[in-house]
Each structure stands twice: as C-alpha cells, then as structure tokens.
C-alpha cells in the first residue's frame, strides 16, 4: 500500500515534477520512493513496504524494460497467481505482488483485472504499445484521480499530488458541493475539485495515440426480482458464507509485517478480529477508539470482545476538543468538504496504530452494505409497511425502534413519525425510494447556500443526477437490493472507504484491509434472497448465523449501532478554537461567497447556545466549516468557487 503519481504526454522537467508529486503524498509511503521517466510518460511512487520488503521497490519494470508499473494496494491472491504463472514458465525476480501484476498484464493485457483479488489502483506504462493503463479495484478501496492539462494526462493517488503540476490551481466545483450537501459525497467521476476526476471503482482507463477510453471491467449486479432465488437453503448458504469469509480473511493476513485489526465492539469488526485471531499464531493486536459521551462510546463491548479473544488491545480516547483540534488536518487529507465529523476519530485511531508500530489493519467495513446492516434498509421496509396503511397510528411507532439515538425522535407522535419519514409520500416505484428521506433531510442544509450559489445551481438536482446513473436492470431488482446498490456503489466508495477509510488511515501510513469486500463474498451475497440478509427487522441475519460460534452472545446478537461522532458540539463550548471562530466569521463566510453569512452566524450562535442540535443543524455546521477549511487549505479564502458547469 502506497501512493503514486504519473503522466502520459509531454512534460518539461519531468523528474522534478514527479519528485514534487510524490513528496506531496509522502505520508502514503514513508518507507521508500522512486521515479521513472521515459519518452512521453513518467511514474513516481511512495512506498509503504508490506510485501516483498527487500525487493518490491517501485516503479517496477519487467525484465525487458518494456512494461513499468506504479501500484498502490495489495493483490491478496498473488501467491496463487504467481504459482500459476510460474507453471507457465514465467520467471520472477522479486517476491512482491507488484511483479505478479506485471506478468499477468504481459500475458493477458487489460483482461488481467478479472484475475486480481485485491484492493488496488495502478498505472502500467506499456512502452511497446505506447499506452498507459490505469485501473482501480472493484469496490473502490484505493483511490485514483486524474486530469488533463495542456494536452497531458496526469494521475495520482491523491489530488494534492496533481496540484503540483505547474499552472494547475484548485477550484471548488459547486455541483460537487451540492452533491455533498445532498448525497454526502460527490458522484464519481466528479470530485470536489473542478476539472479533476476520480477513476470510478471497477473501471480501467487506457490512454494511447491521443485517445482516452474509460470502461468498467466488473459490475455490481443483482438477480431479477421475479427470478427464482439462486440460494434457498439457509444452512448451506451460511456454510458457504463462512468458507468465503474465512478465505477472504486468510488471504488478507498475508504480509511480511504484522497485521492487526480494528475492533469497534460491533458485530462486523468482532467477526473479523475473531477470525484473524485464529490465523495469527503470534497473537493479534486490536485497536479501538473510545468516546467520553455515553451515546457514542462502545468501550464496554470492545473490552468484552478483546478479552474473549485474548488480543493485545489498545484504545485511543476521543476527548472533548480532539475532533476540533484535528479537523483541519482531516479536511486536508479528505480533500473535500464533509458533513460529518466521523472521519476525525478514525484519524486518531490510525495514528495510534502507527504509534504502536503497525501499518496494516483489518476492518469490518463493507458488511453493512453487503449483508444489509444499515438502518436505512430497515427504515425503507418500515416506510413501505406504513405506506400500505397510511392512516395507521400504530405502524409508525416502529420508526422509534430504528433510531433510538436521534435526539427528539422518541418523544414524537405517530403522526409526526410518519411525516418525518415520508411514509406513504414517496411513490413505491421511485428508484431512490429507500434513500429519499435521507437525501431530503440532508438537502435541507442547502438553506445556508448563498443567493449567488443557489442561482448558479438553480437547475441542478443531485438526487435526480444520481437516479440518472442507475443501470438499466435496476428497476427489476428487489427493493432491498436497490437500496444495497445505492449504498455499495455510491456512498461506500464515495464516503465510507475514502473520507472515513483510505484517507484517514493513509494520513498515518496505515493500510486498511476489508475481508467483507472480497469480490467473491460480494458476488455471493448478491445472490442471497433478501430475507436471508434482512429478516424482519433483524439485520445481517445470515452473517450472524454463519458466525455465531465465534462471538459471545452479547456481541453476536447486538443490534447495529451506527458509528457516529459528536458533530457541531465538538467545535463549540469551552475551549473553542480560534480557527473555528475565524472560519465561521461573517467576514470569512462572505469572502468565500458560498454561504449566507448572516444565516451561518445565527446557526453558529444556535449551536453554541443549545445543548442538543438536530441533524440538519449539525450537518450544516460541519459542512460549512469543512468547506471553509477546504477553501483555506487548497485555494485561499479569497478565491471563489468556479461557475457552475
């Protein structure tokens, strides 16, 4: 796991530029770095040494010198692939997974991607064919950004490397801002930066002879709703799931350095840690973050699980003020405005891992998308249930059960509960049915957009933009699968794996590995009948069945506790930091031109004066503050956002 950058085209003083690009992302690869310059192409690499410690330096060329690769991530099945390739007469010079990709590309060209089981992004310079190929893993674990400037294609693991290119400056894309303030993340390939794009998950790009083509090499797909279920026997399905998850974890333990595990106290990371414990004869290190506030803290469950497994456990406390102190750095690494503070404690957690001497951790991310763990899946089911009897005073009470942690919800009447969740209001055949209430309540934050920004965005609707990108088969899927697709294809890579995942871990040179996102497991889960995933209102039913012998009942039977962190109140109250006051001041807000300065001032005062804030106010506060920090970090506050495209 590392970071890389490069170009395809003509670049003066290429070596200097490549060195600057790689220096900008040195945090991703503190162990080594290297630069490769050829006629019309160049690659640079910052290395975090995990596999092939002594011989895996990059950029790496093959024996002939015709193929050169810069690679970020891991190919977990590289052992099996190398064995196969050796049997076919290929000779290896290193013990690294990097060389396996080179050989496989040499044999299969871009079709090699179908054989890779891993979290990766890479660039291969093919001198013979004078072409550059970029590729990214199926679920979007590893990042890859690109832009065209002066006729040259540039690419890198993080945008801050692209900003090193002479003549390139950062401009906030107002459409992306609208998407973040509606959907929580930009819709790839759009990023927060105007004219800088993201290669979408499961896509490859080929640049040759002045032409660039981008296409998917894999797609997340679900069976037709009316089709007979492919897996009907629950016991056999649970056995198959267990075997796949065991193997997914096993190959993710491959490393020439110790592999640890995050342990949140929830079901998913507990399963991963339990499996890994049996595969780590030297003992497993586990890591958690704890909170002072009872509503966010899960330390009792973390300790119970660590004790049950006998792991060597370390925790970092996220105390009052910690989120505010780290937030400017969090935004710098996330490289986009965010409407939640949840990445900040994970930034602290990866620092703990690094300070304790580890650089690889397993995590439980992905289980909620793959096995239907999120509350939003249950919420959609309850909304449909209510929609069948719109006047019912009994049915809406189920909403309380879903969200015990939302301030104010428990005290609401059935009528208000039905109204808040739009029960019966959203047409059942709306492709975004499951996510409409979330998008609508998030979009309410746009009340703080300035008149100028609202005018520029007046014809734009982020939710409809998202709906227009759904595959043709989407309408024929079961509603749960539609909801899972929306989470897995957009929010997972767009926010969970990036802002909360790769960016926070790599800020401290830590690689996260995700057994639940092994593509074999993902594909298997798409074939499961919905009732095996969400059984009534019990989430991840089949996963619980498959792993019940691994966990204490108190963990195995736990209801999903969403990972959250204190939001606006992290920044207000005693010890309020100067940068917050400055960034949220009427002058700074007016300078940016993006928000209504008077309204933001009132929001700030409201958050300061009230002990509890609602979702809209919290999201707006964090969104405005992070946007202000983004502008300061990447453009300077005097620079306004680009005109809406």
């Amino acid at each position, binding site marked *: 796991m590392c970071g890389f950058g490069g170009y395809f085209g003509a670049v003066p003083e290429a070596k200097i530029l490549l060195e600057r690009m790689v220096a900008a992302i040195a945090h991703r690869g503190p162990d080594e770095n290297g630069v490769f310059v050829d006629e019309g192409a160049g690659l640079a690499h910052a290395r975090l040494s995990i596999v092939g410690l002594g011989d895996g330096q990059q950029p790496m060329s093959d024996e002939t010198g015709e193929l050169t690769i810069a690679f970020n991530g891991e190919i977990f099945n590289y052992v099996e692939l190398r064995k196969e390739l050796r049997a076919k007469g290929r000779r290896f010079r290193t013990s690294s997974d990097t060389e396996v990709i080179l050989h496989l590309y040499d044999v299969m060209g871009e079709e090699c991607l179908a054989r890779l089981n891993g979290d990766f992004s890479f660039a291969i310079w093919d001198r013979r064919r004078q072409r550059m190929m970029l590729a990214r893993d199926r679920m979007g674990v590893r990042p890859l950004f690109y832009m065209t400037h002066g006729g040259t294609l540039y690419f890198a693991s993080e945008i801050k490397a692209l900003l090193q290119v002479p003549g390139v400056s950062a401009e906030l894309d107002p459409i992306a801002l609208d998407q973040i303030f509606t959907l929580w993340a930009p819709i790839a390939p759009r990023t927060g930066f105007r004219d800088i794009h993201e290669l979408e998950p499961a896509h490859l790009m080929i640049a040759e002879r002045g032409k660039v083509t981008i296409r998917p090499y894999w797609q997340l797909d679900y069976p037709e709703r009316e089709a007979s279920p492919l897996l009907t026997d629950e016991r056999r399905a649970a056995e198959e799931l267990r075997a796949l998850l065991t193997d997914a974890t096993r190959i993710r333990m491959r490393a020439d350095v110790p592999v640890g595990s995050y342990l949140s106290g929830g079901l998913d990371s507990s399963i991963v840690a339990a499996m890994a414990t049996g595969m780590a004869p030297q003992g497993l290190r586990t890591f958690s973050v704890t909170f002072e506030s009872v509503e966010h803290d899960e330390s009792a469950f973390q300790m119970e699980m660590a004790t049950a497994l006998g792991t060597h456990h370390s925790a970092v406390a996220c105390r009052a003020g910690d989120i505010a102190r780290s937030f400017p750095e969090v935004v710098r690494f996330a490289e986009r405005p965010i409407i939640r503070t949840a990445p900040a404690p994970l930034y602290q957690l990866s620092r703990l891992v690094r300070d304790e001497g580890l650089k690889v951790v397993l995590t439980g991310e992905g289980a909620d998308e793959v096995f239907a763990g999120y509350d939003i899946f249950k919420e959609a089911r309850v909304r449909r249930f209510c929609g069948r009897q719109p006047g019912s005073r009994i049915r809406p009470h189920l909403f309380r059960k879903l969200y015990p942690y939302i301030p104010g919800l428990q005290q*609401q*009447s059935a009528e208000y509960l039905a*109204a*808040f969740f739009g029960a019966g209001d959203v047409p059942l055949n709306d492709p975004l049915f499951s996510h409409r209430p979330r998008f*609508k309540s998030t979009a*309410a934050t746009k009340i703080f957009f300035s008149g100028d920004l609202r005018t520029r965005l007046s014809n734009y609707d982020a939710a409809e933009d998202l709906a227009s990108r759904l595959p043709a088969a989407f309408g024929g899927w079961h509603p749960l699968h539609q909801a899972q697709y929306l989470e897995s294809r957009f929010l997972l890579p767009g926010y969970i794996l990036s802002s909360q995942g790769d960016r926070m871990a790599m800020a401290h040179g830590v690689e996260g590995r995700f057994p639940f996102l092994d593509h074999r497991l993902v594909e298997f889960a798409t074939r499961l009948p919905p009732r095996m995933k969400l059984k009534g209102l019990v989430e991840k039913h089949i996963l619980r069945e498959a792993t019940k012998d691994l966990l204490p009942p108190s963990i195995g039977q736990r209801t999903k506790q969403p990972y959250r962190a204190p939001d606006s109140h992290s920044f207000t109250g005693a010890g309020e930091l100067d940068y917050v006051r400055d960034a949220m001041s009427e002058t700074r807000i007016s300078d940016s031109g993006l928000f209504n300065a008077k309204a933001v001032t*009132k929001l700030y005062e409201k958050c300061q004066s009230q002990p509890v804030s*609602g979702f809209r106010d919290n999201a707006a506060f964090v969104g405005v503050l992070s946007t202000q920090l983004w502008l300061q970090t990447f453009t300077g506050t005097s620079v306004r956002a680009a005109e809406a495209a």
Partner: protein
Amino acid sequence: MTETIKDKVKAFVIENFLFGDTSYDLADTASLIENDIIDSTGVLELVAFIEDQFGIAMGDADIVPANLDSVARISAFIEARVGAPATA
C-alpha cells in the same frame, strides 16, 4: 390578537429554522415538514417556544402535525388554547 400571535410564530420560525432568511417565501399554510424547515429536534424547539412564550402546557396529544405543521396551524392552535388546559 390572532395577527400578533401569527407574527410572533412566523418571526420565531424565520429566526430559528430559516436563520433569518427573510427572502424565503414562507406561506402561512406551507408545511414545515414537507418544506424541510423543521426536523424532530425542531418540533421540540417549537413546543418549548409555545410553552414559554404563550404559557401553554402542551400534552403529548397536542404535539401532532395537525396542530403544528404550518404557521397558520400553530397560530390557530395557540389562539384556541390560550388560557385553556392541556389535553392528556
């Protein structure tokens, strides 16, 4: 009297939920939920405002959209209840 109550209610909604945005065309009959002006926490803020400002004790049965989901409904509810006991 009605006008004064409505003015106070509208001023509270604009100040507290629209953050002083007087350019927002808030019709008296506009739904506060459907127009994303109020959320579950906001309802409790509204109840606290009514109780503090008008001396009305609101029972659980009073806290329903039929009484509170627009400036007009809130005003009518307050007008009808000023001086009257809370329902259960």
